């Protein structure tokens, strides 16, 4: 067979180097070609990651046993010997950018699996890569400011990933730098102040544009024009989060939370004002806890009720007999509050104002008496605070420490104001009221915690520079907690009390619970998980919006945003794509057929979304399940996969 020259560029020699000419015959297999080139370069190094890339055809030659003939490579082909793994800048949901080695030769689906393995995120099938918005070059400086965390040195051992006791995978433990990176990945960061600068989708079309940027999962990065050191975004793409387990999913959970948070702050998913306040409170809480709490997954054993106390006692009793008595003492002698306070009941004593009484706080009730001496007699009134509303009315500057209580009674709600003399008194009574409203007594372990919380609020208020008159708890930075819309609508002074009110209900949550709660509320939003595409239905003259979710397709009116029709996947018989005319046709049970062409995205993306969701639904709850990649390609690949 005739020998001919094949020209191959070797990346190691630089872009300017003249291509090697290798003399080959058509029946030589690719492996042999690589071998000859390597010999010719006379460079000693590990070439195992290198493969041939066919420039004209935009194709990897990965089958080393295939002959040149089989690949239909002739003398005019320009090949490049290049590493399969190249550094890539990856933007994570939490806004940080990593530089890591990603696979450029295998389908993006594989690349994502590799990246997720490196980052210790389970269920990589739920994520994918997104091209960033083309930045206008006008402000180059901001581009440079982005800190890039380098993880290219990380090498992950094959085999099951080992993790250290704190949940950190072994490969992150190599250096303090990588450890720091892991911490950053697994702990949510405080909201940056850049929200207002970040572009926000304002219309359905804007939201639809986002989804036009997804990379094709069944083709490699290089094939899709992604170059070394390019920046891509790693995002959760399919909104059905399988088997979320705080113990194993530290990074996954955090990144999910970050993605959810940004979706809410940027109003990518709509929510009501009340919901926004709750999200803000959770964010505030999460931010606070993740700063203070070292990433420990175990929850501290609360000595909440006698049951656990009893057990502790028993254990202790055998060890040290005498201390048991002390313990018993502390347990039986429950804390109690009593003080002279002022009370004001707007309904009955509108003119009288505050009046002093002797108050005792017991269990979940407040009783008051004329004086301390009469406290053994029947109280003037006893109020059970269970289920009541507690609102602070405080100003450190004005030395005003009031608690407003809205106590439910048979006749309706009773409004009561309690005025305390000083901070300490206030924080104790306030804490007691808050606990009581949730049905917990003073003996509850969270009491001292609550007291501290309130005190620290007050402290912060005091140290606020430039003490303004009549300020309320101006202690939380409402920026970054609510979407810019609410900053325009309300003053920070107005927002703070509302967020604090919502915060009351979540202040006791441990970090992971708070994260999970945030995700739950996010998932319960009606607009959650809807991906929009602008499409043109067959036979229609105007553009409409197709919403794709994890269980249904929604036809939405582009102008009004109203839902026109929904089809659930479980009545879907089949869907086809006519690649020539770029049309998706779907057949449902009962002879319902729809067809549409895609306007904002390619129909491959829509097809992959639908197929992807159907794939997600095939996953079972079994832990041992192995990701069925073949099925994924089958459902999402389109004509290339066949």
């Amino acid at each position: 067979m005739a020998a001919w020259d094949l020209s191959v560029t070797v990346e190691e020699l630089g872009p300017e180097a003249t291509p090697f000419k290798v003399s080959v015959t058509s029946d030589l297999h690719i492996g042999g070609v690589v071998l000859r080139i390597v010999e010719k370069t006379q460079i000693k190094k590990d070439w195992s990651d290198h493969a041939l890339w066919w420039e004209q055809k935009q194709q990897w030659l990965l089958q080393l046993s295939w002959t040149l003939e089989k690949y239909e490579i002739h003398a005019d082909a320009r090949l490049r010997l290049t590493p399969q793994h190249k550094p890539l800048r990856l933007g994570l949901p939490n806004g940080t950018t990593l530089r890591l080695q990603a696979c450029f030769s295998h389908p993006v689906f594989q690349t994502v699996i590799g990246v997720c393995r490196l980052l210790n995120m389970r269920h990589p099938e739920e994520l994918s890569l997104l091209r960033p918005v083309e930045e206008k070059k006008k402000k180059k400086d901001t581009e440079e400011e982005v800190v890039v965390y380098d993880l290219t040195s990380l090498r992950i051992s094959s085999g099951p990933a080992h993790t250290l006791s704190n949940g950190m995978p072994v490969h992150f433990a190599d250096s303090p730098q990588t450890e720091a990176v892991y911490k950053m990945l697994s702990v949510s960061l405080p909201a940056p102040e850049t929200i207002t600068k970040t572009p926000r989708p304002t219309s359905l079309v804007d939201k639809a544009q986002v989804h036009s940027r997804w990379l094709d999962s069944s083709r490699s990065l290089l094939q899709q024009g992604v170059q070394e050191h390019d920046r891509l975004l790693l995002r959760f793409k399919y909104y059905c989060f399988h088997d979320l387990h705080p113990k194993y999913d530290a990074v996954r959970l955090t990144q999910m939370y970050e993605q959810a948070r940004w979706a809410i702050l940027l109003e990518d998913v709509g929510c009501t004002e009340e919901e926004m306040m709750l999200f803000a409170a959770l964010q505030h809480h999460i931010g606070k806890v993740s700063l203070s709490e070292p990433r420990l997954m175990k929850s501290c054993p609360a000595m909440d009720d006698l049951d656990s106390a009893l057990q502790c006692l028993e254990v202790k009793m055998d060890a040290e007999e005498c201390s048991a008595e002390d313990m018993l003492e502390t347990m039986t002698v429950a804390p109690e509050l009593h003080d002279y306070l002022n009370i004001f009941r707007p309904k009955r004593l509108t003119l009288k104002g505050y009046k002093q009484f002797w108050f005792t706080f017991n269990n979940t009730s407040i009783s008051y008496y004329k004086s301390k001496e009469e406290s053994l007699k029947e109280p003037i009134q006893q109020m059970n605070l269970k289920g009541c509303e507690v609102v602070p009315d405080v100003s450190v500057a004005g030395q005003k420490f009031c608690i407003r209580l809205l106590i439910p009674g048979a006749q309706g709600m009773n409004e009561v104001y309690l005025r305390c003399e000083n901070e300490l008194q206030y924080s104790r009574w306030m804490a007691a009221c808050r606990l009581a409203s949730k049905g917990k007594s003073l003996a509850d372990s969270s009491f001292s915690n609550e007291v501290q919380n309130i005190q620290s609020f007050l402290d912060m208020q005091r140290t606020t520079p430039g003490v303004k008159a009549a300020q309320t708890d101006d202690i939380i930075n409402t920026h970054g907690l609510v979407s810019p819309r609410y900053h325009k609508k309300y003053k920070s002074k107005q927002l703070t009390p509302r967020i604090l009110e919502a915060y009351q209900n979540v202040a006791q949550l441990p970090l992971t619970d708070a994260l999970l709660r945030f995700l739950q509320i996010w998932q319960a939003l009606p607009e959650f998980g809807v991906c929009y595409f602008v499409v043109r239905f067959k036979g229609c003259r105007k553009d409409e919006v197709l919403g794709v979710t994890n269980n249904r397709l929604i036809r939405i009116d582009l102008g009004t945003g109203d839902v026109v029709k929904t089809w659930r996947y479980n009545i879907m018989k089949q869907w086809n794509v006519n690649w020539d005319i770029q049309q998706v046709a779907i057949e449902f049970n009962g002879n319902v057929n729809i067809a549409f062409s895609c306007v904002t995205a390619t129909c491959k993306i829509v097809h992959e979304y639908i197929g992807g969701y159907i794939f997600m639904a095939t996953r079972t709850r079994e832990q041992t399940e192995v990701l069925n990649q073949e099925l994924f390609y089958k459902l999402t690949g389109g004509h290339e996969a066949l």
Partner: protein
Amino acid sequence: MKKNNNNDIPQKPHVGVGGPPVQQHDGLCLPDPQERRTTVMDDIDAMFSDLLGEMDLLTQSLGVETLPPEPPSSSSREMNFSMGFADMNVESLNELEENDLDALMADLMADLNDTEEKLAAELGGKKEAEAPHPDLPPAQHGLSFYPVPSLSTPTSPERGPNTFSAPLADSPAPIHSQPTLPQHAKPSMEEIEAQMKADKIKLALEKLKEAKVKKLVVKVVMHDGSSKTLMVDERQTVRDVLDNLFEKTHCDCNVDWSLSETNPELQLERGFEDHENLVDPLSAWTRDSENKVIFQERPDKYEVFKNPQNFYLWKKDKKTIKDMKDRDKELLVEENFCGTSIIVPDLEGVLYLREDGKKSWKQRLFLLRASGIYYVPKGKSKTSRDLVCFVQFDNVNVYYGKEFKNKYKAPTDFCFVLKHPQIQKESQYIKYLCCDDAWTMNLWVTGIRIAKYGKSLYENYKTSMKKAAVTTAWTNRTAATAATTSTPSTPSPTTKAKASGQANGHAPQPPAEPVAKVGNAPPPPPPLLPTQILPPPPPDPVLPPPPPPLTTKRSPPATSVSRQLPTLPTSFPPSPTSMANLPPPPPSLSQDDSSESPPDFLPPPPPTLGFGPGAGSLPPPPPVSLPPPPPPDPGFPLPPPPPDPAFCPVTNRGSLPAPPPRQSYIGAGAPPPPPPPPPASAGLQSTPSVRRTGPPPPKRTTPPLAAPGGGDFMSELAKAMAKKRGNQ
């Protein structure tokens, strides 16, 4: 110990008999925990006497004359009885029918048993857990039943001949006390003291806890208009109470059965959710309220799980909804209730809102979201950010309104109301909404329940289904055994039950129907049979104790077993007794702890396990067929998977105090259970139903006198009743 009994007993009858004191009592009880709290006690003994002193005060203030309060003895059992029997307007106790009283006593008794058993079980568990502790002298291995007696030691030293114990001389208790005493001599005095102290603390803590438990006497109106009275303690969920009622009424136990409250003044009605605490909402009732608790079938209770498409696909056309396949329904439930987040039906529609303080009803476009009900303000769009919050669900419950057309001039009678459970009267804080039709109302009320209760609702449903399935199985079984009349083989029917319960997860009722009737005529739980034969024991403590409610299923042999036990303990080493309370036998220990849950169920029919907690609450089949053998008998042919003798005690431990120690318990005033065939007993009281009272004995039977100690207390109660009857 007996003295203590004297102490407590008088109180209880008084509570039962004397109407007015009841309320005082309630009031008086409250302050006592706090007093206790403020007292600094440097000695446990001091604490005990302190407690007792309080009790005395309490008793005196109640004007108890029958028996003067005893000098401080250390048991704090009084706490149990002194606790408030708030009569919650349901009906004051003295107005109760006698049969109600009987039923109540049964409840009470079972309640006490439960507590004692729990205590014993806990103690047993602890002991075993601590087994390897170096502090415990190895000598204890020999003292197989030492610990439990010691549990009652606070009282036992003072135990003296007592009016009631004397006639009972032939019953187990006194016999039993003999083996106990010698045991005390063996270990060093220090150890004993230490042990006693420890036990005292435990006991005290347990009592303290118990003392805080609030109980209500509740009159439940049945669907046929009759009523039943039962006692509900604050730890009981609606589910527990329902189970209790199932046993009392022998209804078909289908998932629709529910407890509802009605408020005639506001013309409201609401079905309690199964996971709710019953006492909580009832505590909100005012003294003069005419509210009622009703036991009835409510098809709307779990409709959302039976036909989820009606709620989640309400926008679809009727035909699609109607033709929904079962598989698709399951899928819907799964999608909306099994994910990480509960999905609330996306309801929206125009409803009428009653304007505050006005008589007019105004139309508004409302939307339901997980976070609350919102409305669209005039001139705004439906986008989330424009919505105005109408109400959030944290502090309100949803009620059906009845005949609001008349009362409030509502456009239709299909109204629902949102209000804080505490509010019982007309108030501006109540929100009234009116729908066009019943269907819309149902949609909204259910939607709100989903938003408010979320996952609990689905959990409740699953529990109800299990319960219903087991019942079906049970009735099937009864029928089967009745038909064959052969010695019933326990496993096969239960297997059948399992199959039907699981395969036919959605509709266990149909097969149940015919069988249920069979079961109804002679009430399914066999327990009734033996007890009916027994002469209704008069309040005479001399009588040989009839089986307690929990053990009624067991035939007489059980009692005799208990009698011979005291002599046996040393003869068979790892008897249930020893296992129950002692650290010793290491091998079985580990097994024991790990198998904590299995003991909750009936070992004989393994399939029952599949039914979960529900299974335990049924009077389990096996005892019927089982001639209860003395547990020690190793050769006894146990049904199918014969519990390995070493395992039996383990099984036993979880729920029942082991025989010999139990006796000393009984002395302390409560739990009767005779040593049963371990498997059966374990099955009888699965943990979930611990609080649940046992099947009540038939009317007019003096409740559980099985054990002498229990007899003391109960006979007192009965005496008081007799007195009352005499007075009438």
